[in-house]
């Protein structure tokens, strides 16, 4: 089973191109924001 918390790349491993790394960076950040917003709106709806 792969580790849930991702370790760093192995030494000497080729890195994905910059555009792909940036896409993951902003994609994961946006996913985090959306997940937080979803929980916030769910709680708000629950309390209405």
């Amino acid at each position, binding site marked *: 089973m792969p580790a849930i*918390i991702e*370790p760093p790349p192995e030494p000497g491993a080729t890195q994905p191109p910059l555009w792909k790394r940036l896409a993951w960076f902003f994609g994961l950040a946006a996913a985090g924001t959306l997940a937080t917003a979803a929980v916030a709106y769910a709680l708000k709806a629950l309390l209405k």
Partner: protein
Amino acid sequence: MDLDALLLSRLQFAFTIAFHIIFPSFTIGLASFLAVLEGLWLATRREAFKTLYLFWVKIFALSFGMGVVSGVVMSYQLGTNWSVFSTIVSPVIGPLLAFEVLTAFFLEASFLGVMLFGWRKVGPRLHFTATVTVAVGTLISAFWIISANSWMQHPAGFGRMPDGTLRALDWMSVIFSPTFPERFAHMVLAAYLTTALVVGAASAWRLLRQPQETESRLALRMAVGMFAIVAPLQLVVGDLSGKEVLQVQPAKLAAIEAFWETRTEQPFHIAAWPDRAAEKNQWEISIPKIGSWITAGESAAEIKGLKAFAPEDRPPVALVFWAFRVMVGLGLAMIALGAWGAWLILRGRRPGRGPEAVRPFLWACVAMGPAGFVAVIAGWIVAEVGRQPYVVYGVLRTADAVSPVGAGSVSASLLAFLVVYAVVFSVGALYILRLIAAGPLPPGAADTEPPIKPRPPGYALGAAPDPAAHEEEARR
């Protein structure tokens, strides 16, 4: 003492916030520690830093999650138990709490995903950017929360509307109220100390069982270095914060020191049993004359005693007095531990003489592991109970801020909180402790770096570690 809705609501808030503060006071420091570990790994590529990062990031994620869950309860209580407070004060502190969510919590929550799931996907440098962003986010979070609390301690830049609600007239005065700088510094240093003590205790615990574990040796030295520097600094900042209290909340200062009479050359009470009804200390162990010097900087300074304030304006004395002594006592113990550790590091340049080789020191580090949490909770008791009978000092009394709910409802919710917190947070805390006890290396894994061997005896540098031997061992 009647268990009415007011007292029960206060007990509930105290219980939930005491649980909550454990987590942010740990994650603020741990986020910065992770950023340092990752930065050092990037700079040196030393495996031990990476192993330590991967170990502590799991504990950070769990603590962060428990901090969020316990924090949500706090904000909802403002509506359920303190609705009058919310109605009157929320136009001023509501935006501060909203800024905390928008500028700090979202920042942390967003980049935590990159931290946990993106190291290979985004590469080392962008991952480091995410770790630093999360660390900065925790500090921004502390900024807004301390800003809101400092305003409640010393309100400024506001006006009262005809309907009784408060409005901000000068936002800069609201955000940067007079006591804010010292209180913010005091809290951030407390968080760094708390984390350093936990890291020190975890590493010491491992070293008592695995004396050669490189990661734990490294983490212990980093933790000792941290609390050796931060603990004395905290004493200075705490003293500055205390001098602010003397200026803006003299009744709290009188309770902290159990001063009943207004006079110059106040004594310093090392221990006492303040009796609120009798308006005196039932017994006291004191050093004459130096109380004024400690609190105001000069023995001739006149310091107000509690009798200078109407009985209904005095905070509870015994709780504030003893909570302060617990905080300061633990702070002094931290300074002593830091000085001992620093001396051992300076002495222990030769193998077998450093802090990791001195078992009494390792046991002392283990014993002091929870001290940061206890000191933080004691400090907040001093700040919050010492502000009573006001919830916004001099503006709104706590008794006038509670929701119009029955004691039965609050008893039921308090009981529910006691049961749920006992189950949920005990399980979470036990899991974290098990992770810490397991250590940074997976079971059965060899140490990532061999211990540095001494040079042969008789050689001029015989007592110093031999880097060549280290490299040779590593190649094998």
